[in-house]
């Protein structure tokens, strides 16, 4: 995928070339399933977009608020389970209601967790995300009667995608899911970008830069951290709703610490503090994962080495490469 365009994070200037590039990428993504008939790539790109949304939600937390969450995929998993259980047990046809219920349920779970987490410091926050993440993972894994335990949640119905009464197609067709995901992810991306560029986003960045100074200016640091956390969790839960529609299945491995490290890796690859970078990171990561996991079963070793390598030599990630070359040219 050609994702080398950059959308300026904070700058208010007008870049016709960049807007053109964004439109070009969106159009090519939207037209892709009509040009190519390859089902494998369609589903791979769907997965990339969903994980891109998840990585972007973690980036809101990590790159903008400066809070590290080791297991952000937990909240994606919780929402996926909630949507799945809603569709199986309550109503097999109402897609929007299920997604809404899933997002609300995830927020209700994330709120008390976030409330406890933001009261501790930045480091304890990171450790607690791991502890709570493992707790949810254990619950999902052990509560066989509801979640299906190790086997995961199966027998998902395929609700029709409708909008204000229009019938847009069945969710059993990968092309429909692809287009649906693309639309939702695009909306989420621009919405998040708008939020991050608002005064609220500036407050989050102030907290990232210096918590003490932010509180001296009169910012309620804990409340804004909690709001940042909730924003990230809600975005992650939207990714979860898309995930279960795409896969039709959710298992505990999606919520494991290992998968969480993968999401962290996507953000690192793309560069912390860059929304489009998170998508680029997810696209690269899933492509590499798909490639390497066919060759070796010791994907863990490679993941660990990649993370170490990236932190040591490329801490700004893919999005930072541009700055690096600019500096290089000037010198």
């Amino acid at each position, binding site marked *: 995928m050609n994702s080398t365009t950059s959308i300026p994070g904070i700058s208010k200037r007008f870049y016709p070339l960049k807007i053109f590039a964004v439109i070009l990428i969106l159009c090519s993504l939207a037209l892709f399933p009509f040009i190519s008939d390859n089902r494998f790539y369609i589903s791979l790109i769907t997965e990339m977009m969903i994980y891109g949304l998840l990585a972007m939600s973690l980036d809101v937390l990590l790159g903008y608020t400066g809070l590290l969450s080791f297991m952000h995929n937990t909240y994606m998993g919780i929402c996926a389970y909630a949507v799945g259980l809603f569709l199986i047990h309550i109503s097999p046809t109402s897609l929007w209601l299920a997604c809404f219920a899933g997002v609300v349920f995830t927020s209700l779970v994330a709120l008390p967790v976030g409330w406890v987490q933001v009261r501790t410091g930045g*480091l304890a926050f990171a450790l607690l995300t791991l502890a709570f993440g493992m707790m949810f993972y254990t619950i999902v894994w052990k509560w066989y009667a509801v979640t299906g335990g190790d086997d995961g949640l199966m027998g998902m119905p395929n609700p029709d995608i409708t909008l204000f009464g229009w019938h847009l197609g069945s969710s059993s067709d990968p092309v429909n899911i692809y287009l649906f995901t693309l639309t939702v992810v695009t909306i989420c991306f621009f919405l998040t970008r708008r939020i991050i560029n608002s005064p609220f986003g500036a407050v989050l960045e102030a907290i990232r830069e210096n918590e003490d100074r932010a509180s001296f200016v009169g910012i309620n640091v804990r409340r804004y951290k909690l709001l940042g956390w909730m924003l990230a969790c809600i975005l992650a839960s939207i990714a979860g709703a898309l995930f279960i529609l795409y896969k039709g299945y959710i298992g505990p491995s999606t919520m494991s610490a290992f998968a969480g490290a993968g999401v962290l890796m996507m953000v690192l690859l793309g560069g912390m503090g860059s929304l489009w970078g998170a998508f680029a990171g997810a696209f690269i990561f899933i492509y590499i994962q798909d490639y390497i996991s066919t060759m070796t079963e010791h994907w*863990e070793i490679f993941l660990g080495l990649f993370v170490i390598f990236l932190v040591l030599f490329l801490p700004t990630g893919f999005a930072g490469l541009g700055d690096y070359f600019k500096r290089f040219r000037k010198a």
Partner: protein
Amino acid sequence: MSGTFSIAIDLLLNSLVLSGVFLIVAMGLNIIYGLSRIMNMSHGALYAVGAYIGYSLVATGVNYFAALIITPILVGIIGLLIERTIILPMRKRSMVYTLILTYGLMFFLDGMIKHIWGNRPRFIELPEFMQGMISILGTQYPVYRLMTLFMIAAIMIALMLLLSKTKAGIIMRAASTIPEMVSCMGINMSYVHMGAFMLGCAMAGAAGIIAGPLTTIDPLMGGEMLISSFVVVVIGGLGSLRGAVIAAILIGFVQTFTEFFITDLAMVIVFIMMAVILAFMPRGLLGEGKFE
């Protein structure tokens, strides 16, 4: 009546053993954090590495007690290599990077364990005399479990003496409060960081080989121990050694008793307890960074 009593004794001793293992791992984490402000995410993996090295040593015919001494030294050397190669460049960067870096290291070490020793669970062969049972107040209790209590107590006393009586310990305590002053006294802080990291890793290795024979050794043990030791460290207060003692005993008892009564969701009870404690004492029981 005697049945209930013997179960109570059993549970009490088991809680103490579990607390002791948590204590040593958490103490290693706290020493590293207290001295160099680095939270080592790969600590659980190093604990697993310790258990596996102990297994290999015993399996190749090394005396168990010799393995008990060699393993921490080997894990300490691994710690030294890690510190010199990848932790050292991180000193000047934000803490987030170290967290992510050591998290990556954890996956690398876990992957290496699976690569070298495989997924199969392993058992450490104990010498004959430690395999039996001993009668305590009418309760049959495994000898080895009792031995672990003595070993853990010995390690803790040695650590206490190191920190309070030796010159290295005094330097370490001083460095945890005012590192700048320590370097003004002509002490190379780089060596202090190195020593702290080695000591912390060696303690993880020691906990690994002590806890190894208690259960089976499998690749998942590191991750579980990492979470438990984080819970201990966060509840006790980051970098607070006394807080870690109290928190380890608390968590050890709560986990053993809930495991006995509810079995499956014991960890969930522990986490809920942690959340309640942190809601009222966000800095942990004894506050942050009391290094003594």
